C-alpha cells in the first residue's frame, strides 16, 4: 500500500526485490527493509512476544526493539526493520506454534496470566522434584528465541581483523558525520561506524556500514560487528554519536499492534512512502512526538487526537484492542477510534558505550533522562548521545487505565509488566540491580534501550525516592546482539610442523593436533606399529620435544634448585630424568637432562612445555641472578627415537662410533655421527625397548629419517607410542597429572632429595609428607576398556578416575593408570571401574606392566 513519493523518500521504485515470507512472495524496492516491504504488503503482526505470545507489530523501526525479529535465511533473531531487502531471501516467523496470526502458544496469555507472574517457575517448578525432567523439557522448549542450526541452519565463515584508527566515530547521524568530517579536515585518519548503512561512503573518511560497535573496552578497544568480520579497533580518539532512543510510555495496552514510537511512524511514512494507518492518535511529552502529525497528514492518515502531556495531565490512559490489534485510545473516559497510536515518552541519550568506557551517568530531573558525564580521556560524546536534546516533560511512571485493565508493559522483550515489577518490589527485590535479575527487565534483546528508564522511574515512584537515588544498572558489552560465530571467528593460530612433517604425510599418516603441533596419530595400523617396536625396530619423530641448552658456571646450581633431584653430581655424558614442580608442589613438566660438559646441560621437556619451561628457567635465573645462559633450541633440531630389539644393530650400521652396551650404556649421552649427520645420541627409553634418541640439525632430519627407514625401521605414531609407554607405566604430564598432582601422589617419592638445602617445591613435599596425600596414581589391569575419565567407584560412589587406558596385546589385558584413594594404592588391591553404567573389577599394580625391572632398556 504505497502512497505517492514523499519528500524524504529513500526507495528506488525502479529496482524491485522479491523475497519469500512464510511461503508467499513479497516484493519491495531498493532502499526498503524486509520489515518495510512486509508492512507495505499489509502485514501488521511481526512477532509473538517472548512469554505470553501476544501479537506484536512494528514499534521503533530503528533496530532497537525486539518486535520484528524473525529468522532470515536460517539466521535467527534478525531485526527485519533494519535488514535490507534482497532477492531470494527466505523469511520465517519464530517463537510461534502455528502462525503469527494464530499462535497456539498464545493460550499462555489468555489462561496463564494469573499463573505466570514473575518468578513463577523459580518457585513452582522445583517440586515435586521427580517432575523436574518434565518441567525442564517444557522450559527448554519455550525458553529462548529462534533456533540455531538445524536443517535450515547456516554455515558461514567468520574472521577477526585487528585495525587501528586515529579517530573512530560511532554513529552516522548528523552529529557523528559532522565530527568525522571535522576530524578528517584536520588530517586525521577517521573511521565512521554506522548501524544502519544510511551514510554514503567515498568522502574524506572511511565508512563501515552496516556495522555495530559492541562495546568500549580498556585501552580504547572497540569490537565492531560488520557481519562476517569482527574488527578489533584500537583508536586514539573515540567519538560516541550513538544518538538518543525514543522511550515508550507505560499504560494498559501499550504493546498492542499499532502502538508505535514517533521515528518508526516517520520512517514508514516518509522514507518508505507507506500509509502507516487510517486513523491515528498521538500521546507525547515532547515536540518529537507531535511533529509526526505532519508526516501522517502528508501520508493521508487522519490524526484523530493529540494528547500533549505537557499541556494535559490525564488521570486515565489506555489503549484498547481486539485480537491484539489496537482499536481505540481511551483518555479519561473519552474514546477515540484509531489503528495507529504514536507514543513518545521522551528521548534518552544512548549512553551505554560511554558508561562502559568509564563515564559516570547522572540523572537530569528537569528532562527526566540520564546524561553521561566525566568522560575518560580519549572518549568524547557528541549530539544527542551527549544529552543535546530539546525540552521535554517528565512522563508519569505509568498511567492507570481506569476501567480498561489491560497489561501495562515495562519491557516488551521479556514481557515484564508494571505489576511484575511491583511484585518484585513487594518481595524485597528493591534495588534496580536485584529487580533486574529477578524480573529480567532490561535483559532481553533490546538490552534496556526501551525499558531501562521506565523501570527506574517506576521503582522510584513505588519506593518514594527519585531516579537519581535508584541509579542505573551497570552497562556491559555487547551493546548490540552479536552472532556467536563472529566471536568464535578464526584467529589464525600458528600450526607447528616438525622438520619431518612431509615424510609423515607422504607415508600416509593420520595427522592430529597436539597443542600447536601437528603429529602423526599412526600410519594406518597402530597395533602393527606397536608390534614392530616390541619385536623388531620402530622409529618415531620426537622433534616436538622441548630442547633447551643451559650453560654457564652456575648451571649445575640452577638446575639443583629447579629440580627435586640432583644434577650437580651428574657426570658429563650421563642422563637423568627430572620433574619440575612449583613451590605449591604441583607437577609442571618432565623430561630428561643430559650433562654435556662441566657447565653445559641439554634439557628436554614435554612437547607442549618448551616455552613455559624456558620462561620458568629464565624467571628463576632472574630471581637468583645466576651466571647462566638459557637457549631454547626446540625449533632448530629434529629428533627421532629409534626403538626395538634391533636398535643397536641398526645404529651400528650407520655409525663408526662404538655403540656396544659397554661403550654406550643406558642413560648415556654421546655425540655421534649417524648416516653422516652429527647427532646427539641419548640412550633412553620412553617406549620401554632398547632405544636411542637422536637429535640433529633440523635441516638434516629427513636424511636421518630416510636412512633409518631404509634399514627397516617401521615409523610409528603417537597412538602406538601411548600404548608402549603405558605398558611401562610412564606418565604423561597433563594427561595423567592435573593441577592437584604432586610428586608423592604421583608415586615418585624416589625423585625427591630432601637432603638438598633448597629446591622449588621442597617445602610443599615436606608438608605433604607430614599430612599424607589424598590420592595416589596407580596402574591397573582389567578386562574391559574404560574411557579415559571413567570413574573408580566404591559402594556406588566415585572415589577416583581413570586417566589413561589401552588394550595391550603384549600384557594380554586392558592396562591403565588411575587416581585412587591412598588405601587402594597397594599391589593387587581390588578396585571397581564404571564402564557404561556397570561396575567392572580391576586390579591395582604398582610396577610397570611390561619389563618391570627395565632389563630390556639396559640390555
Amino acid at each position, binding site marked *: 500500500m504505497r502512497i505517492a513519493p514523499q519528500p524524504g523518500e529513500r526507495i528506488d521504485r525502479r529496482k524491485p526485490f522479491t523475497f519469500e515470507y512464510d511461503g508467499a512472495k513479497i516484493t519491495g524496492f531498493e532502499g526498503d527493509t524486509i520489515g518495510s516491504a512486509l508492512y507495505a504488503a499489509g502485514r501488521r503482526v511481526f512477532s509473538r512476544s517472548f512469554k505470553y505470545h501476544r501479537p506484536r507489530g512494528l514499534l521503533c523501526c530503528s533496530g532497537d526493539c525486539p518486535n520484528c525479529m524473525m529468522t532470515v535465511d536460517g539466521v535467527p533473531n534478525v531485526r527485519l526493520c533494519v535488514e535490507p531487502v534482497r532477492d531470494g531471501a527466505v523469511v520465517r516467523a519464530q517463537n510461534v506454534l502455528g502462525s503469527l496470526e494464530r499462535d497456539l502458544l498464545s493460550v499462555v496469555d489468555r489462561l496463564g496470566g494469573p499463573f505466570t507472574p514473575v518468578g513463577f517457575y523459580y518457585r513452582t517448578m522445583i517440586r515435586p522434584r521427580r517432575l523436574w525432567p518434565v518441567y525442564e523439557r517444557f522450559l527448554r522448549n519455550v525458553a529462548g528465541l529462534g533456533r540455531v542450526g538445524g536443517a535450515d541452519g547456516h554455515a558461514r565463515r567468520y574472521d577477526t581483523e585487528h585495525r587501528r584508527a586515529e579517530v573512530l566515530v560511532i554513529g552516522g547521524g548528523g552529529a557523528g558525520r559532522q565530527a568525522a568530517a571535522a576530524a578528517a579536515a584536520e588530517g586525521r585518519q577517521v573511521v565512521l561506524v554506522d548501524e544502519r548503512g544510511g551514510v554514503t561512503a567515498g568522502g574524506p573518511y572511511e565508512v563501515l556500514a552496516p556495522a555495530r560497535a559492541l562495546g568500549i573496552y*580498556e*585501552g*580504547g*578497544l572497540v569490537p565492531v560487528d560488520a557481519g562476517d568480520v569482527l574488527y578489533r579497533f*584500537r583508536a586514539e580518539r573515540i567519538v560516541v554519536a550513538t544518538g538518543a532512543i525514543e522511550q515508550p510510555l507505560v499504560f494498559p495496552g501499550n504493546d498492542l499492534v499499532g502502538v508505535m514510537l514517533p521515528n518508526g511512524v516517520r520512517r514508514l511514512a516518509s522514507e518508505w512512502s507507506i500509509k502507516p494507518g487510517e486513523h491515528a492518535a498521538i500521546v507525547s511529552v515532547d515536540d518529537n512526538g507531535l511533529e509526526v502529525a505532519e508526516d501522517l497528514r502528508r501520508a493521508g492518515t487522519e490524526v484523530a487526537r493529540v494528547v500533549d502531556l505537557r499541556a494535559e495531565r490525564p488521570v486515565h490512559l489506555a489503549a484498547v484492542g481486539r485480537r491484539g490489534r489496537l482499536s481505540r485510545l481511551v483518555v479519561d473516559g473519552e474514546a477515540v477510534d484509531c489503528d495507529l497510536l504514536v507514543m513518545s515518552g521522551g528521548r534518552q541519550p544512548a549512553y551505554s558505550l560511554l558508561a562502559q568506557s568509564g563515564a559516570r551517568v547522572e540523572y537530569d530531573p528537569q528532562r527526566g533522562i540520564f546524561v553521561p558525564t566525566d568522560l575518560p580521556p580519549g572518549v568524547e560524546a557528541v549530539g544527542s548521545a551527549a544529552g543535546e536534546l530539546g525540552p521535554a516533560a517528565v512522563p508519569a511512571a505509568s498511567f492507570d487505565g481506569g476501567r480498561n485493565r489491560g497489561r501495562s508493559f515495562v519491557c516488551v522483550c521479556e514481557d515484564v509488566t508494571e505489576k511484575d515489577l511491583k511484585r518484585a518490589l513487594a518481595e524485597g527485590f528493591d534495588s534496580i540491580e536485584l529487580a533486574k535479575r529477578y524480573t529480567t527487565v532490561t535483559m532481553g534483546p533490546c538490552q534496556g534501550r526501551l525499558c531501562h528508564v521506565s523501570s527506574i522511574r517506576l521503582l522510584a515512584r513505588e519506593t518514594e525516592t527519585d531516579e537519581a537515588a535508584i541509579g542505573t544498572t551497570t552497562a556491559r558489552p555487547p551493546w548490540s546482539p552479536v552472532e556467536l560465530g563472529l566471536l568464535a571467528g578464526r584467529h589464525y593460530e600458528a600450526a607447528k610442523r616438525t622438520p619431518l612433517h612431509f615424510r609423515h604425510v607422504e607415508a600416509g599418516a593420520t595427522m592430529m593436533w597436539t597443542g600447536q603441533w601437528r603429529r602423526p596419530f599412526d600410519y594406518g595400523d597402530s597395533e602393527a606399529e606397536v608390534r614392530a617396536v616390541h619385536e623388531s625396530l620402530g622409529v618415531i619423530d620426537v622433534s616436538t620435544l622441548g630442547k633447551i641448552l643451559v650453560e654457564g658456571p652456575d648451571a649445575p646450581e640452577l638446575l639443583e634448585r629447579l629440580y627435586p633431584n640432583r644434577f650437580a653430581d651428574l657426570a658429563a655424558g650421563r642422563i637423568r630424568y627430572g620433574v619440575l614442580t*612449583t*613451590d*605449591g608442589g*604441583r607437577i*609442571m*613438566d618432565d623430561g630428561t637432562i643430559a650433562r654435556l660438559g662441566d657447565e653445559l646441560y641439554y634439557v628436554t621437556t614435554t612437547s607442549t*612445555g618448551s616455552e*613455559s619451561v624456558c*620462561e*620458568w628457567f*629464565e*624467571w*628463576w*635465573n*632472574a*630471581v*637468583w*641472578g*645466576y651466571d647462566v645462559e638459557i637457549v631454547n633450541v626446540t625449533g632448530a633440531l629434529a629428533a627421532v627415537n629409534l626403538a626395538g630389539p634391533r636398535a643397536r644393530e641398526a645404529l651400528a650400521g650407520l655409525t663408526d662410533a662404538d655403540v656396544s652396551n659397554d661403550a654406550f650404556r643406558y642413560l648415556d649421552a654421546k655425540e655421534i655421527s649417524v648416516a653422516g649427520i652429527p647427532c646427539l645420541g641419548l640412550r633412553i627409553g620412553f617406549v620401554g625397548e632398547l632405544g636411542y634418541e637422536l637429535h640433529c640439525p633440523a635441516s638434516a632430519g629427513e636424511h636421518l629419517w630416510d636412512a633409518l627407514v631404509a634399514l627397516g625401521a617401521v615409523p610409528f605414531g603417537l597412538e602406538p607410542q601411548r600404548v608402549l609407554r603405558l605398558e611401562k607405566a610412564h606418565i604423561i604430564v597433563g594427561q595423567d597429572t592435573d*593441577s592437584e598432582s604432586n610428586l608423592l601422589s604421583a608415586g615418585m617419592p624416589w625423585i625427591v632429595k630432601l637432603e638438598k*638445602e*633448597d629446591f622449588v617445591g621442597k*617445602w*610443599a613435599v*615436606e*608438608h605433604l609428607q607430614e*599430612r599424607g596425600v589424598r590420592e595416589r596414581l596407580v596402574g591397573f589391569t582389567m578386562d574391559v576398556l574404560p574411557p579415559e575419565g571413567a570413574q573408580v567407584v566404591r559402594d556406588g560412589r566415585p572415589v577416583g578416575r581413570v586417566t589413561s587406558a589401552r588394550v595391550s596385546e603384549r600384557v594380554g589385558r586392558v592396562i591403565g593408570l588411575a587416581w585412587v584413594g591412598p588405601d587402594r594404592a597397594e599391589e593387587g588391591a581390588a578396585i571397581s571401574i564404571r564402564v557404561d553404567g556397570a561396575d567392572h573389577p580391576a586390579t591395582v599394580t604398582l610396577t610397570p606392566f611390561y619389563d618391570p625391572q627395565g632389563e630390556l632398556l639396559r640390555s
Partner: protein
Amino acid sequence: MFLLACPHCGPRSVDEFKYQGEVTRRPPERPTLRELTDYVYFRDNVAGVQREWWYHGTGCGLWFVAERDTRTNEVLRTEIPEPSRGRTPAPVEAAVPDTPAV
C-alpha cells in the same frame, strides 16, 4: 592498551609482554603450612601501585619488575631486580609467585 618500558628495549606495546603477577616474597626458611599457602596462593590484589613481574616474551626475553597503578595502568617505573641468590635474604627478596596453569 598501554606501553611498558622494557629495561633493555625501551617503551614497547604491552602486547609483547607476559604478565606474571605481583612480586611476592619467597620465604627464606622453611615456612609453616600457613605461610607456604599464603606465599603460593594469596595475593594482595591492591587497587593502587603494585610491584609486579613482566616477561618480554616476544622481545628480548627479559624478566623485569614494573611498578604499575592497577587503577589507571600508569607504569611508574621498570627495573631489573636485584638478584637474591643465597638462602640469606637480601634486603628486598625478589621472590616469585606460583605460575598459573602451565
